[in-house]
């Protein structure tokens, strides 16, 4: 229990630290503030690759945050800043890669697989339905009727 509490306090401390590192970036315009937060959330920290620029405390991430902050303060738009980053670090810096021929497989691949799955499923269901509808031969028909009559007779006697 004590361990749990300690780790909980530790985690609280971490989030406070995280918040503190971003609180230093303030803008007069709330729209700009929102843009800034969006940009650093969408950018990958290249040192610790599974963290965003917003979440990372790596030196380079701090430098890049400062750089982006200065650029925004200097009046540059979100698009310009994204171009600046991509020109230096490549598409890899973006968490969602741009749609272009080399990224078609990752954007449309799942859709294509989904469609193939749909076609396969459709054909299987269709085939099952068909096999159920096959007509009975004369002998089978006769037997079926016999069985049905039999059960009806049975029911009559039971009543």
């Amino acid at each position, binding site marked *: 229990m004590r361990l749990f509490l300690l780790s909980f306090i530790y985690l609280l401390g971490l989030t406070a630290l995280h918040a503190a590192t971003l609180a230093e970036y303030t803008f007069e315009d709330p729209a700009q503030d929102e843009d800034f937060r969006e940009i650093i959330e969408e950018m990958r920290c*290249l040192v610790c690759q599974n963290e965003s620029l917003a979440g990372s405390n790596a030196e380079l991430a701090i430098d890049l945050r400062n750089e982006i902050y200065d650029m925004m303060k200097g009046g540059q738009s979100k698009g310009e800043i994204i171009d600046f980053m991509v020109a230096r670090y490549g598409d890899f810096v973006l968490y969602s890669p741009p749609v272009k021929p080399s990224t078609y497989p990752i954007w449309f691949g799942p859709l294509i697989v989904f469609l193939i799955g749909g076609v396969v499923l459709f054909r299987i269901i269709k085939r099952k339905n068909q096999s159920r509808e096959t007509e009975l031969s004369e002998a089978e028909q006769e037997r079926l009727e016999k069985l049905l009559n039999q059960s009806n007779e049975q029911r009559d006697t039971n009543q």
Partner: protein
Amino acid sequence: MNRYLRYSVPLIVFGIIAAFLYKGLGMNPREIPSPLIGKSIPEFSLPSVESAQTMINDQNLKGKIYLLNVWATWCVSCRAEHDTLVHLARSGKVEIVGLNWKDERVKAQAWLQQLGDPYTVNIFDQKGRTAIDLGVYGAPETFLVDGDGIIHYKHAGPLTLGVFNETLLPMINDLKAKGS
């Protein structure tokens, strides 16, 4: 025929997945293709490691093929690659320009005095601003730059003689053949 085809479907699917995983898991996530290949090195004007008064800019470096090596004294892998750099510099096969990244001047100077100085020019980028323009995300990184200041190759991680001889040296020889 149809039956064989149907039974081979899982095998084919497995084969495709295995091929992607084999390729994908074998790739190094640290090796990020640089968008700067084929482009000019960024404009800069920075002091040298030796002296705050000596300024170096991108124009000063034109007219020769060189390796631009990003290094720092806090970087462990740079220590590992340093002997290779000294060896290469002594061999005379290529000139090495240093970009000292987010470091302290005194420490950098002491490092060079102690371990040998492979750099003909050593740029002191304390703020790391030029390193950002170069798309540096870790040290060491080594760029191959030609006489016009165009970047031809980037190697992330410690430079080894193997990488130099197999990849960089042929490119350097090509550039020399074209340039002369």
